[in-house]
């Protein structure tokens, strides 16, 4: 059933994302009027443009991979963190800070994050085995996620340099501030590649609605689908985490809010969630810039503050639906 509202979801989200992106270019501590001169141009291109582009890319990566994972695992509580990718990226970045690589090289930090995400992906796929289903993937992901959390804590406690420890803690909270076009150039190719991989999985995720056997009967290769879901998430979310730190709950909330608006169809949820994720991250970043221009509240903290009550509400309603 394609109702009238469903036809407006994608254009509406696209328009919302566009408006937020423009607002993100215009709004900030330094007011930029029309014809603001050279300084205004510098602020726009060197500070706000990379921040806006990263907001779009990171949000789309989180939203789309959340929708793809929820479709693949057939579980509305799944999000990119559950398969250990964000944890791996965070660990790689933390090691880059700890070893001083991040201080000596501009791309050291994101590079560490990318390597960490790739390592987490390889470990998860190896642990889950060649023929494992969604459950083994979740188990492998949870194992890798707990291990990375423990290793990050270990790095923090072993850190001799208090400034590095503070930097690690701040970085882990997630932020889009003080990023340059270098970060954009580094993160954009893997994020776009990951988005391209995930965006093509709609047909197979639709088929999976009726279970693994029917999906196979409809022509889906389950092992190929799993590989593409994990690889696409590793590229998109790994690179996003590498430049922005961990921004939680976007990948969980966005697909969940949008699902009823697209008739619960996994294929239609993919583009909607990419746009919705971009809009949510841009909106949260804008809210921070307006509410705390000094940078006191971090983006990842804000999304978690919004996300946790939502998660509780999700658990309560799921409990009610499952009650006898």
């Amino acid at each position: 059933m394609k109702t009238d509202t469903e036809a407006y979801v994608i254009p509406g989200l696209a328009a919302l994302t566009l408006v937020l992106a423009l607002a993100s270019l215009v709004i900030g501590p330094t007011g930029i009027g029309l014809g603001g001169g050279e300084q205004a141009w510098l602020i726009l291109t060197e500070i706000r443009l990379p921040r806006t582009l990263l907001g779009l890319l990171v949000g789309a990566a989180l939203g789309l991979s959340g929708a793809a994972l929820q479709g693949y695992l057939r579980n509305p509580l799944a999000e990119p963190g559950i398969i250990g990718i964000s944890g791996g990226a965070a660990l790689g970045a933390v090691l880059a800070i700890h070893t001083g690589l991040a201080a000596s090289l501009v791309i050291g930090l994101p590079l560490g994050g990318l390597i960490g995400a790739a390592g987490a992906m390889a470990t998860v796929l190896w642990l889950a085995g060649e023929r494992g289903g969604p459950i083994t993937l979740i188990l492998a992901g949870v194992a890798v996620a707990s291990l990375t959390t423990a290793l990050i804590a270990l790095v923090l406690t072993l850190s001799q340099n208090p400034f590095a420890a503070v930097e690690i803690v701040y970085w882990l909270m997630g932020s889009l501030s003080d990023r340059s076009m270098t970060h954009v150039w580094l993160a954009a190719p893997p994020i776009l590649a990951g988005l391209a991989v995930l965006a093509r999985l709609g047909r197979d995720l639709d088929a999976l609605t009726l279970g693994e056997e029917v999906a196979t009967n409809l022509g889906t290769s389950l092992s190929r689908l799993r590989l593409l879901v994990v690889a696409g998430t590793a590229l998109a979310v790994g690179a996003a985490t590498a430049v922005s730190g961990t921004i939680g709950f976007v990948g969980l909330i966005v697909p969940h809010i949008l699902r009823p608006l697209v008739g619960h169809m996994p294929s239609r949820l993919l583009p909607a969630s990419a746009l919705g994720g971009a809009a949510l991250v841009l909106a949260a970043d804008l809210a921070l810039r307006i509410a705390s221009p000094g940078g006191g509240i971090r983006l990842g903290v804000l999304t978690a503050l919004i996300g946790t009550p939502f998660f509780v509400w999700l658990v309560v309603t799921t409990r009610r639906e499952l009650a006898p």
Partner: protein
Amino acid sequence: MSILIKDARLALGARIVLDGVDIEVPPGRITAVVGPNGAGKSTLLRACAGLLPAQRGTITLTGRPLDALSRAELARAIAYLPQERAVHWPLAARAVVALGRLPHDDADPAAIDRALGAMDIAPLADRPVSQLSGGERARVLVARALAQEAPLLIADEPTAGLDPAHALALFALFERLATEGRTVIVALHDLSLAARFAHHIVLLANGRAAATGPPADVLTPRHLEPAFGVTMLCTNVAGLPIVVPISTLP
């Protein structure tokens, strides 16, 4: 399309379910697979659908080994309806039926409407499947398999949960598909339905095909009683064959 199974061994993990099985599924006919719980009906159907490779022996689809067919070829040749009736998201009934068109990449509205009409669920088309009754949901899933419009239809217990009117209608539909030249394989517990509608019976028991052939030859106390461990009344009422279990054998 015919299926020929030669000396096949089918296993679930380490457990061998069927061994040394030779079965022929004739084209353009309804073949009913019957047998007690755990006899391997679903396993045989999954193997015929190309979802479970044989550990030994061969399974061929009109002369071609199943494992030589590509995923796309299999998806267009065989529609498989499992016993499991999971629909993981509350899609509208029409959207579920439309999934049957995925192998054809066309979402052909005419094929979807035909399938909805055949299963008498056109009035439910816009309702989410989560709000349908068990029997209505079962008909939506049969319609999904019909929408695939494959020459071979494999259905595992398609009448489970259906009321008598819809069960009869479903078999009338299978008969029509067979006269159109399509091949139908169903696993069944209702032996009277099998006796009345199937052209060919495969009786599974104790890990092998205990008997195969026309209903009049296979659905007899001589074959059924040792297979099911139950005394059976096989008779005719008003010209229709009836098979009724009476009491468990000592």
